[in-house]
């Protein structure tokens, strides 16, 4: 397992890679601050979330996911598929209420004022900066145009 972790003042991004069929036990302490993420296409990740009654399996074959407040209460076992698994996870460093939404950019996208974003995959330019996978672009005070081709998780 590899984790490329970047800690920003408010948020933290983790690019996580598992080998084929590798399992990762995610303790409550780790899931506590994770709010959303993006599984990259072509991988299969199975989350075994322990609820109060029994374990259940939820396949995730790619795309955006959110971790609810309830999920934070239970540890999680992630099992990679036969080709391995990788995903981006966004966490917060400072307690608060945050929102996360998936945005696919193909060309131009207007990012509303007050929202930042993490790049799940692809590359975009905005406000004179180039943002690539795993990087976080902070919020601006006005709407700005984001250009390129990428899957973003916008955050505020």
């Amino acid at each position, binding site marked *: 397992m590899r984790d490329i972790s970047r800690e920003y003042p408010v948020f933290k991004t983790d690019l996580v890679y598992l080998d084929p069929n590798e399992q990762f036990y995610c303790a409550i302490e780790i899931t506590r601050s994770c709010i959303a993420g993006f599984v990259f296409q072509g991988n299969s990740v199975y989350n075994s979330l322990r609820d109060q009654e029994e374990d259940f399996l939820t396949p995730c074959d790619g795309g955006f996911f959110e971790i609810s407040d309830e999920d934070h209460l239970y540890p999680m076992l992630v099992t990679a598929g036969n080709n391995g698994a*990788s995903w981006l996870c966004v966490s917060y460093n400072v307690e608060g209420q945050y929102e996360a939404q998936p945005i696919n950019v193909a060309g131009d996208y207007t990012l509303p004022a007050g929202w930042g974003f993490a790049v799940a995959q692809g590359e975009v330019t905005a406000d004179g900066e180039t943002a690539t996978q795993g*990087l976080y672009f902070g919020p601006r005070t006005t709407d700005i145009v984001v250009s390129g081709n990428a899957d973003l998780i916008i955050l505020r």
Partner: protein
Amino acid sequence: MENLTEPQENTPPEPYIEEFTTENGTVYLEVYTKAEPL
């Protein structure tokens, strides 16, 4: 099973690297860095 799409990796400057083995034998390699928003 589809082919794995390997994500691009952006190498952060002067990362802190930690490697350890969990109780179930998982080798965990973390490349950590503090960063400023773009």
